[in-house]
């Protein structure tokens, strides 16, 4: 049986980098991996989704509705959008960060401020974490992704990998310490 992870957010939030580090770690653990990223139009401020499946042998690269064991959302409303993909009993990790889309900015649609409260009533395993706030506190919004990676590693109990060591292959040297701190902070948030 494969484990299915869905990463969702908005173009430019660093989802692709997070999925690369995650996949490299899973490969180190000896798993077969399939990962699916759809890019193109989504780069221009649209929704971005990455799907990662791992196990002894993985065939299909995609994840259908009600098939995700764990969803990590970089943004509140994207967690709401991805909710139908969560398996019953699965875990949702979401940043409480908000990014307004054009229909919201122009007043054509309303941003559902109470999305997390409603989700908390429905989803048993929900972790709302302030990854973006932590990144701001550390002084670089771009480490939000690695903070969320820390949280995901804790949830999935993927402790057999030296994640902090692995980060050196994926982030610039001058930002390595910051990323390690972000990882540790995210890990501690669960």
């Amino acid at each position, binding site marked *: 049986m494969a484990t299915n992870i869905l990463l969702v957010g908005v173009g430019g939030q660093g989802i692709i980098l997070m999925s690369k580090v995650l996949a490299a770690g899973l490969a180190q653990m000896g798993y077969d991996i399939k990962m699916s*990223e759809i*890019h193109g139009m989504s780069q*221009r401020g649209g929704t971005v989704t990455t799907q990662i499946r791992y196990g002894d042998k993985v*065939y299909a690269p995609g994840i*259908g509705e009600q098939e995700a064991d764990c969803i990590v959302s970089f943004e509140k409303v994207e967690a709401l959008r991805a909710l139908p993909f969560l398996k019953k009993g699965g875990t949702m990790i979401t940043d409480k960060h908000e990014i307004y889309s054009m229909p919201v900015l122009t007043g054509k649609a309303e941003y559902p401020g109470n999305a997390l409260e409603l989700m908390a009533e*429905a989803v048993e395993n929900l972790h709302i974490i302030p990854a973006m706030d932590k990144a701001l506190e550390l002084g670089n919004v771009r480490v939000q992704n690695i903070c969320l990676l820390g949280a995901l590693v804790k949830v999935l109990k993927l402790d057999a990998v030296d994640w902090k060591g692995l980060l050196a292959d994926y982030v610039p040297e001058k930002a390595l310490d910051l990323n390690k701190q972000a990882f540790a902070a995210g890990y501690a948030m669960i």
Partner: protein
Amino acid sequence: MVKEIMSGNEAIARGAWEAGCSFAAAYPGTPSTEILENLAEIREISARWANNEKTALEMAIGAAIGGLRSLAAMKHVGLNVAADPLCAVGYTGVNAGLVVVTADDPGCHSSQNEQDNRFYALLAKVALVEPSDSQECKDYIKEAFAISERFDIPVLFRVTTRICHSKGLVELEQPGETVVKPYQQNRSKYCMLPANARVRHVVREESLAELEEYANTSSLNRIEWGSRKLGIVTSGISYQYAKEVFGNSASILKLGLTNPLPRTLIKEFCGAVDEIYVIEEGEPFIENAVKALGFSCTGKDKIPITGELNASIVGAALAGKNPQAGYSVEVQAPPRPPVLCAGCPHRGFFWSLKKNKKRIVAMGDIGCYSLGVGEPFAGFETNLCMGAGISGTIGFAKALEKQGDPRKVLGMVGDSTFFHSGITSLIDVIHADANVIACILDNSITAMTGHQVNAGSDRDVQGNEVPAIDVVALIRGLGVPEDRLRVVDPLDLKAMQQALDAAVAVKGPFVIITKRPCVLIKEVARANAGRYCQVDPDKCVGCRACTLIACPAMAFKDNKSIIADPASCTACGLCMQMCKFDAISKVGE
């Protein structure tokens, strides 16, 4: 054995390297773009971004006839542009191997249609190979080059978005020596005049028959025996969905070499199972062949022709696997459509166009500016294929004229699209003396596909210095007089309005070139770093005029406009020009 996580596109490039391919050409198009980008990083390979898919394939054909293993890559609709050389090289055959990668897009993730390019293999009489994951992308490319040379036939290598952009573990092998086959003159083979073409058609039919014999025993076509109660015939990504749903419970005929189809093997398989399912995305390409062999099977009667497949769809259609109830909440997520970036030069163009809607009706084209179709700009009324934004105006203007519609027709293409097929379209406009406005939205890059260089750039994809083509000089060279030509900064709304006024005032062709580089170009972004606009809350009266340009860096809160995201604001100044109360100023200049 070294294993690496690779996308299908990366694996295709790696496979070409391992196969000793040394020439590659492509035109950028999602989901195929990264193939050439990865090939360009390999020193042994001469890689080029072509002006369009036709010139890309023709370059590769030239190299293959000359003696180098060559590859051309394009998205599915690109093969429509390259169909002419494909059908010709189908007859001539090759010298060194030639592989044409077509990246189809079921689900229209970033395309105008879902055409199934496997049919091009039948039409052009070329071999067809379909991998089903990254490992096969690499392995099958090597096999494709071998088939191309052994049977003197071009190979169409068909992948789909889910193959191109999915990643999996790939076992790497050593890169191969560059293959060079000595060039030998052979006019009767390579000059497709009627007398030669008739002969070559006969030769091709014979070689296709030989290739079909090979296909019956090739390792690309294999049977995985399971229960004989159910036999599944499948290819490409659909194989993964079949395995996901049926595991090892059914027998599977997994096809990788699908033109010519291995009819003997299909008969052997279908004759040995009780019931047959054909699982394939898109059109019933294999299903039709199975039925033509006299077998009844389940396929497109249950599996949709439209859209992208996945394991859930296949499971629900064929295995009665219906999804369980999941989670839901009462509120809906507001839509998040892709938008023009903060600082995008196209925003000024589309705002100006919107203001002139009563006088101008516009036709669109393919590129970032396709995003101008959405609200609030609703920037154009048609959007079909590359180049049509300019040539389409000629007929459209005639049609409006016949109906007494006084509006002038405007067409638009980007710089890369202009080089792709807009040049010939513009020549038609000028030669037809059409009463239209032709706009070239020049942002100095092929932006939508992720910033590839084009003929307007002074460096090629491998970093070599090259002569940049001057769009304005080219258009002047076509005989467009100075009073019918304007070069404007699209973020200067006054200049934009003056250009449109001048264009509407005259009868006949008028050319407007909007010139300002994309804000995502590294050097431009660096120059703009630290620059942003700010709104003085005391001067802002909350009229919302500045929000009409739909800039994602702006927001409207507590009855005042604000620059909500200064980091993405480039201080382009468009919102300042919208403000009548002098409430917005630039910071960091």
